[in-house]
């Protein structure tokens, strides 16, 4: 480890510390501040954060943790209730079909369909909570839709990456799908562990000086990431499946979740976002503006149009569609993966990140404005 690695990490951790404080004052998500700070301190302007092996390693770990926590956040208790899923499923199906059609017509890669469909649960939930409508029918449909969309898009991304990165015979193509077999096996093993060793398993979720739960969780994440590499699958799929496995098997466990979120959002994940910003090269020209406007148009169209099918009411439909257009962390994670695989260029990466930041600011603001204006009509 070189001295400049420490400088790099010192700058990044300082930014990570200051971001939430600044974000609170500016009333924007902390992730936005982290990316913008990264852009200012990175190659585009000050060039203070340089690329290094250590930063890349921590950033990769941050992405793995982000994917793990995204899987962990999926509330299967909500998703597995038939009455909850019907409307969100219709909404998602129409939205995704529409985005597929538009991206195909524009000759864009499939990853755009995923990026434009994806939604940030981290924005939808707090926005609904802020307006105290999260328990209303509208709020519940909104939360389930965003969870379902998150799960589906990340799942599709994983499958797409598998199909892109594997070549050869049937065995070579089938091998990466082995990760799903391991997932299912692990799920049943987890249930058996709960049933036959509840005393041991309960230690994972209680206050324990040895932090058995944290150690076990990290071991599971690394196991899934390792198996992913072995089977030729992207690490993010392994991490996402590990989080989903946790959520599906254990369903709850606030103490352990808090600790894992602490490690993730308190240390590793900000490094990923700051590094993403730092490695983004901003180029201002008309083509960039045109590209961002085009993305915004498509994003709002594919989210607002299907809401009219789900909600007959014009105001509900509009506000629902606007909120579902919010994008953030997972979209940026997907952009990073797309860039790494050569599916999107540096120009596209930069502008999709800017587009993501714009939706994360624009959508909740518009939603709040619209909802407050027509308060009585929302419920």
């Amino acid at each position: 480890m070189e001295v400049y690695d420490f400088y790099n990490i010192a700058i990044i951790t300082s930014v990570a510390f200051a971001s939430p404080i600044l974000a609170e004052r500016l009333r924007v998500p902390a992730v936005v501040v982290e990316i913008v700070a990264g852009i200012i301190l990175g190659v585009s302007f000050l060039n203070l954060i340089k690329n290094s092996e250590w930063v890349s390693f921590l950033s990769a770990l941050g992405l793995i943790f982000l994917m793990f926590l995204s899987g962990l956040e999926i509330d299967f208790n909500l998703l597995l209730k038939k009455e909850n899923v019907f409307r969100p499923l219709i909404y998602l199906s129409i939205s995704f079909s529409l985005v597929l059609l538009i991206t195909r017509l524009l000759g864009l890669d499939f990853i755009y369909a995923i990026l434009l469909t994806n939604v940030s649960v981290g924005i939808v939930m707090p926005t609904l909570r802020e307006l105290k409508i999260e328990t209303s029918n509208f709020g519940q449909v909104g939360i389930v839709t965003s969870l379902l969309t998150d799960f589906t898009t990340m799942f599709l991304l994983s499958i797409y990456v598998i199909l892109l990165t594997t070549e050869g015979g049937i065995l070579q193509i089938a091998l990466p799908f082995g990760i799903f077999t391991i997932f299912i096996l692990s799920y049943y093993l987890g249930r058996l562990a709960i049933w036959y060793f509840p005393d041991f398993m309960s230690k994972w979720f209680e206050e324990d000086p040895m932090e058995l739960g944290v150690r076990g969780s990290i071991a599971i994440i690394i196991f899934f990431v390792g198996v992913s590499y072995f089977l030729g699958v992207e690490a993010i799929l392994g991490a996402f499946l590990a989080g989903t496995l946790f959520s599906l098997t254990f369903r709850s466990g606030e103490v352990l979740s808090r600790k894992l979120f602490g490690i993730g959002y308190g240390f590793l994940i900000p490094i990923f976002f700051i590094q993403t910003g730092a490695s983004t090269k901003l180029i201002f020209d008309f083509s960039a503006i045109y590209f961002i406007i085009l993305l915004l148009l498509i994003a709002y169209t594919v989210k607002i149009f299907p809401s009219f099918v789900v909600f007959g009411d014009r105001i509900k439909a509009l506000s629902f569609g606007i909120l579902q257009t919010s994008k953030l962390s997972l979209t940026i994670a997907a952009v990073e993966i797309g860039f790494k695989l050569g599916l999107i260029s540096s120009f596209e990466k930069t502008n999709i990140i800017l587009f993501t930041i714009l939706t994360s600011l624009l959508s909740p603001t518009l939603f709040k404005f619209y909802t407050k204006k027509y308060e009585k009509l929302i419920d």
Partner: protein
Amino acid sequence: MFLIFGSGRVAREIAKKLDDYLLIVEDRSLAEKLEREGFKAVWVDPEDLINLPLNLPLKDSTVILASNLSRNLKIAEIVKGIARDVIAVGEKPEACSIYSEMGISKVCGTAIAATVLSEVSELKRRYVEVKIDRYNEGQNLKDLDLGDFCTILSVIRDGKLMKPHPELRLKKGDILGVLCGREVRYTKHPFEEVFVVLTEEKNSEKLLKEVELFKSKFQSHVLFMHKIGDTLACTTAEPENPNPVGLDEAIRIVKEFRVKPDLIISDVGKKDDSLLEETTSIAPLLIAKGKNAYEKILTIVNTADPYDLLNAAVSLGISCKCKILFLDVSQLSLLSKFTETPGLEIKVSKGNQVIDAVKEARSDYDLILVSWKNDVGNIDFGILKKIIFDTQASVIVV
């Protein structure tokens, strides 16, 4: 409508508190006098009581018997089974037990009867305050029988709140806090009507063991559902060689007859979601695994509406070790309900709710109570069914 039989003080007090009533008086002049005083009263010929069902709209009325014991019993014989409900007002404890034997709802203690009846009959209010007058002065609290639907929660004397001890001697001016409602009846007689459904012959002994437990502990009236040939039969006596019957078939019959038992005891081992759902919508289901006694009981509070579950837990938990596992901290607000129940241990899940529930359920319990609603605690139905069917303990699914 309320048909009040009687013309005395109690009958008039009750009438004053009700809107839609009719006083039925056996003395013509007294009926006329009451009418002049502004009461709605009619005279019936005491010799013609047998024709009461023809002359009065009994089917749609609640009959309140507020006369003396012999008249009340005579009228009860006639109207019972025809009137929508029959409530007797009695003063002496022996009268109350006679009414109980006849299967008549009763409110004993005439001075408080009027207030309580007027509230309870239509359940306008759940909490009633009754002032003790000279008629009940000197009585012990235990001698005031408020019937199946009401219970005394508190006694206020000279502005001070007192614990309602059974031996407490009442004074004039005492205020009784009375709580009325369906759950009160359940607390007093939690398992009065019990249906038994044997689904497999080999489990007969196990099932009957637990039926006996309920009979001895709760004086339950037991109805055995079994088959004679192809026909489903119901008997109050234990059949000698009972033929098994499917729980689904038994439930269909119970539903057709629109009866609502307090408990269904069965040996069912089939993990059939819809059958469990249908059964528990009618009554709690005890899946009997042949326990000789319920010495250790666990209640897993996995529902947001846990009153039935907790009432059953408290009823069963008297005189044994009973643990209540709350899966959510917010449910602790219900705790005040049980603070005075002896032998009760409260635990709140702090780690993982599913694992905590499994850990407890797999411990050495004789009986586990869970809710099929399962809307609190994130226990998935696969694990819930394992708790119900694969543990050593008998399980009551509410």
